[in-house]
């Protein structure tokens, strides 16, 4: 469903991604692995439309979506979370999810200004769906809490709830377990690997080999913007290039 064809991204003199190829099949849970600065988040941004690639193509569901804007891609069914746990910090958890639902409701500004009964009903339905989204991830009790005040574990779940509210077919999660305790990370990955992947295809950026090996179907390893491994997570530790990338090579 997703095909990355020879993506190259250059920032001035810096080559962040160099001719990256890989594909993701429907229903897969793929991990994008690599040391810091390998280009994982840049690749996410290219796939999600936040950055145009210098060369190459992104094919999504048989359609070339290279260079489409972020909101276009969201409407086609690509949702993503951000590495920095970006939320609408001043708003409540429920309102955060409501923003994710906006794409399912037509703006209908005039009806909104007049607050017609139909519009209000639609608004109530959206709120019910937003609450459903929180329940899905088990954080409904935080519905009225201000997002910025929530603990990190809940915030991470909330970012996923916001992204899922758009009803994506492809979900990109940028380090969903980073900064979480072992228990929280396990809880998060259990959700991702069961309930969430039943709803959509998932690609995650992840450093942690325990998580990659424990939950993902396949790993794609990037180093210096290039793909150096694409295959089963179990083979990671046996691949010399992956081991070198992570542990470093003895220099003469």
């Amino acid at each position: 469903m997703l095909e990355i064809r020879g993506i190259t991204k250059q920032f001035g003199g810096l080559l962040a991604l160099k001719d990256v190829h890989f594909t993701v099949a429907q229903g897969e849970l793929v991990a994008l692995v690599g040391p810091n600065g390998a280009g994982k988040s840049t690749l996410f941004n290219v796939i999600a439309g936040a950055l145009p690639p210098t060369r190459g193509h992104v094919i999504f569901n048989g359609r070339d979506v290279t260079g489409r804007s972020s909101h276009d891609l969201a409407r086609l069914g690509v949702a993503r979370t951000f590495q920095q746990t970006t939320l609408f910090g001043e708003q409540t958890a429920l309102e955060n999810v409501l923003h994710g639902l906006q794409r399912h409701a037509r703006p209908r500004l005039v009806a909104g200004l007049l607050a017609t009964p139909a519009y209000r009903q639609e608004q109530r339905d959206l709120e019910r769906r937003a609450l459903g989204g929180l329940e899905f991830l088990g954080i409904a009790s935080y519905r009225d809490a201000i997002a910025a005040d929530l603990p990190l574990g809940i915030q991470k779940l909330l970012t996923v709830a916001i992204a899922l509210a758009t009803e994506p077919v492809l979900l990109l999660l940028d380090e969903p377990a980073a900064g979480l305790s072992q228990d929280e990370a396990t809880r998060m990955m259990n959700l991702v690997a069961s309930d969430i992947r039943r709803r959509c295809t998932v690609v995650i950026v992840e450093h942690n080999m325990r998580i990659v090996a424990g939950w993902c179907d396949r790993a794609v390893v990037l180093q210096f913007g290039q793909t150096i491994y694409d295959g089963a997570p179990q083979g990671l530790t046996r691949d010399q290039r992956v081991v070198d990338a992570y542990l470093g090579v003895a220099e003469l």
Partner: protein
Amino acid sequence: MKRGLLALVVAALVILPPFGQPYVLHVAIVVLVNVVYAQALYVIMRMGYLSFGHAGYIALGGYASALLATKLAVSPWVGFLAGGALAAVFAWALGAVTLKLRGIYFSLSVFAFAEVVNAVFRAFEFFGGPAGIAAVPRPALFGARLNTHLQFYYVVLVVALVSLVFLYRLQWTRFGFTLLALRTRETEALAESLGINAARHKTFAFVVSCFFCGLMGAVHVHYLRFVSPFVFTFFLSTDLMVYVMVGGLGSYWGPILGTVLLTGLGEQLFAAGYYKSLVYAVVLLIVILALPGGLISLSRLIGRGGLRGRAAPVDAIAAGER
């Protein structure tokens, strides 16, 4: 209780003026005009944009209507709408480009626009040059010109109430809700990733904001019966921001409260000339330091829940400047 209070205020605004002195009516008109300016400015401040140049859009509306009335004898009623429309068109053209900028860069771009507008009005004789345009007529109703303070007060009241109701309702629409998602670059990227076309939302908000400034600017000029490059200056732009911040950014009622208190105060200090700015500056500093949610946040501290909305700290604006 809130509805009752609101009804009482509106009733007072309708019933009491015939008993007022002309000077009191003058103050009331100035306050109403400024409330609409501040509330229009709040539309974009609510989404994290500070404008140092809304006076430029006010001037566009005012000059448009004044020129139409004096040169082409167009009815001021039409002129009011034409003033709003002209400001909206310029806002649409400029907003599409400048709203990509954040923080001080946006603020400066709007400031520059306002200064250009001002310079053009000053430079060309067609626009009245430095002397401005005099003998701007008042509108007429049923053949009679609305020449007294009292008659014009009701014109201002109607325009102000219609504008304020529109802007209030706008905030509670899905569109108004989405604007809150665009307060910083980070949340804007998040909103985009959710399928929200941020540029379109921001441009429309800016157009609405400037439309009401242009509209009220036109009404204002027909009240003064005169306009010159020295009427709508940089100082008006900054005063409006002070009103909004002192009142509070967290609620619709904040900018109104701030404007009513400070414009009332401003009129009293008019004789003091430039000291007005000094007083505003001191009030603003005190509010930012002691009461970041603005004066409106006091109502929540005291009453707990008479007014809807949540206090957003002024910091949110600063966060937008990164």
